[in-house]
C-alpha cells in the first residue's frame, strides 16, 4: 500500500519533470500555458466584445480555471492505461495507479493556476469571506472525488473500447459550451434549466462563483446530482479496475 502511494507520487513528479524538460523554458511554460489559455478568452470576451462590465473577466476566469482542471484530468486519465501498456506487460501494478497519476498531475498544475486566480481576484477588489475557508475546500474536494471516479471509469473502459476516445473528446467540447463558463445558469431558458442542473460541472462552476465572487455559500442542494454521480463513478470505476486488473496485459494493442 505504502509502495503504491510512493509509486504514484514519484511517477507523477517524474512525468511533470519530463514535461518541463521538454521545452526550453520548461517550468515557465508549465504554468504559463494555462494562463495563456485563459488570456485568449480574456482578450476575446473581455477586450474585443467588452461583455457585461468589468467583472465579466473574473466571472469567466472562475469558470475557465475549474473547467481546465476537469477537462485535462478527463482527457489524460481516459488514455492513462492505454499509454502505459508497455509497463503493464512488464510489471504488475494495480491499474488504479494510472488514472490516479493523471489526476495528481492535473491537480498539481491546477493548484498553481488556482492560486494565480485567487491573486487576480484579490487584486481586482474581491475580498476573502468565511465561505472561502469553509465551503471552498469542500467544493474542491467534491470535484476532486468526482474527477477521480470519472478518471477511473474512463481509464478502465477506453483500452477495451478505444472508439470511446472520440466520444469523450467531443463530449468534452459539448460540455465546455454547456457548463455555464460564458453565461450565468439563470439566463438559461426555463424549459432547459432542469437539464443544466444535472451537469455537475455547471453546478461546480456556479458554486465556485458564489463562493469567490459573491462571498456566499454555494447552493449545496444544487450539487446533489454531482454528489450522486461522484459516488456512482467511484464505485463503477473502482469495480471495473478491480475486475479487469489482469485483463489489460492479455490484450494486444494495435
Amino acid at each position, binding site marked *: 500500500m505504502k509502495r503504491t502511494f510512493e*509509486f504514484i507520487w*514519484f511517477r507523477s513528479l*517524474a512525468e511533470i*519533470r*519530463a514535461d518541463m524538460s521538454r521545452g526550453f523554458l520548461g517550468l515557465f511554460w508549465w504554468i504559463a500555458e494555462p494562463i495563456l489559455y485563459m488570456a485568449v478568452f480574456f482578450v476575446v470576451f473581455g477586450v474585443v466584445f467588452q461583455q457585461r462590465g468589468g467583472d465579466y473577466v473574473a466571472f469567466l476566469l472562475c469558470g475557465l480555471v475549474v473547467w481546465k482542471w476537469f477537462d485535462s484530468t478527463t482527457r489524460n486519465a481516459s488514455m492513462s492505461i492505454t499509454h502505459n501498456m508497455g509497463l503493464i506487460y512488464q*510489471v504488475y501494478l494495480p491499474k488504479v495507479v494510472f488514472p490516479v497519476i493523471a489526476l495528481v498531475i492535473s491537480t498539481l498544475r491546477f493548484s498553481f493556476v488556482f492560486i494565480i486566480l485567487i491573486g487576480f481576484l484579490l487584486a481586482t477588489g474581491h475580498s476573502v469571506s468565511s465561505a472561502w475557508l469553509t465551503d471552498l475546500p469542500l467544493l474542491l474536494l467534491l470535484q476532486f472525488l468526482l474527477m477521480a471516479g470519472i478518471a477511473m471509469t474512463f481509464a478502465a473502459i477506453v483500452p477495451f473500447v478505444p472508439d470511446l476516445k472520440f466520444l469523450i473528446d467531443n463530449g468534452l467540447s459539448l460540455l465546455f459550451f454547456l457548463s455555464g463558463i460564458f453565461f450565468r445558469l439563470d439566463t438559461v431558458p426555463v424549459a432547459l434549466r432542469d437539464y443544466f442542473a444535472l451537469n455537475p460541472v455547471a453546478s461546480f462552476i456556479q458554486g465556485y462563483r458564489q463562493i469567490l465572487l459573491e462571498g456566499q455559500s454555494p447552493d449545496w442542494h444544487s450539487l446533489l446530482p454531482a454528489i450522486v454521480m461522484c459516488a456512482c463513478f467511484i464505485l463503477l470505476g473502482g469495480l471495473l479496475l478491480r475486475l479487469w486488473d*489482469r485483463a489489460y496485459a*492479455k490484450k494486444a494493442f494495435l
Partner: protein
Amino acid sequence: MSELKTAQRELIRLDNVGVSYPQRQGLFRSSEYWALQDISFNLVQGETIGVIGRNGVGKTTLLRLMANIISPDRGKITSEPGIRTVLLSLQAGFISSLTGRQNAVISGITLGLSRQQIESCMEKVVEFAEIGDFIDQPVATYSAGMRARLGFSVAMQVDPDVLLIDEAISVGDEVFRKKSAQVIRNRVKANETTVLVTHNAQLAGALCSRLIWIEEGRISMLGDAKTVIAAYLGAQA
C-alpha cells in the same frame, strides 16, 4: 531441521493451469485462443528451472503468469505467501527525457523497491551499468547498449525471491545476453530461485537443473536438463 525444511520449500505451484486470449472475429463475436493448457509443475526454493520451446508456444505467457501480471483462466497457481516474484524487465517505466539517475529511481520504484533502497545502491547501479558521467544526462542521449545496461543494473538491485528471465528480450544485445547469463550463474551458486525462458538449448542445459519443454501451449516434457535437451534436439532434427 530447518535446513531440511527450507531445502524442499515449494515457492510456486501450478495445477492444470490454462490461459486463453480473446480473439476478435467481428464486431461482437470473439473466440478464445488457448495459449497455455494443462500446465502443472512446481518451483522449489533454490532451483534454476529452464523453459524451452520454439517461438510462439506460450513461453512468455508462462512467465507473465508466474509474475502475476496475468491470471490463469483455468486451474490455479499457489505461491508461498509473501514471496516476491519479479520478471526481469529492462527499462521498466523509463522516461527518456529524464536523466539516468532519475530513471534509475523511477525504474527501481516501479519494480518494487522503496526510494531509500534504490538511492542507497545508486553507486552500485552506476558502476555495474558502466556509464560513468552519463548518469546525469538524459536517457534520450544514450546508445541502445547504455540504456540496456542501465536498465539491467537497476533490475539487478531488486533481488526477488523468484527471478523470471525472458531471454527473448535480449535479441541482438550481446551485453544483455552475457550479463544475464552471469547473473543466473551467480544465482545458481547462491541457491536462489530462477526461471529462465530461452530457445537456446545449450544455454538452458548449462544453467538449469530442470527443464520444461513447451510445445503448442502444453508441456511436452519435464525433467532433468540432459534428458529433456536430448529429446528436444532430437525432435528438432
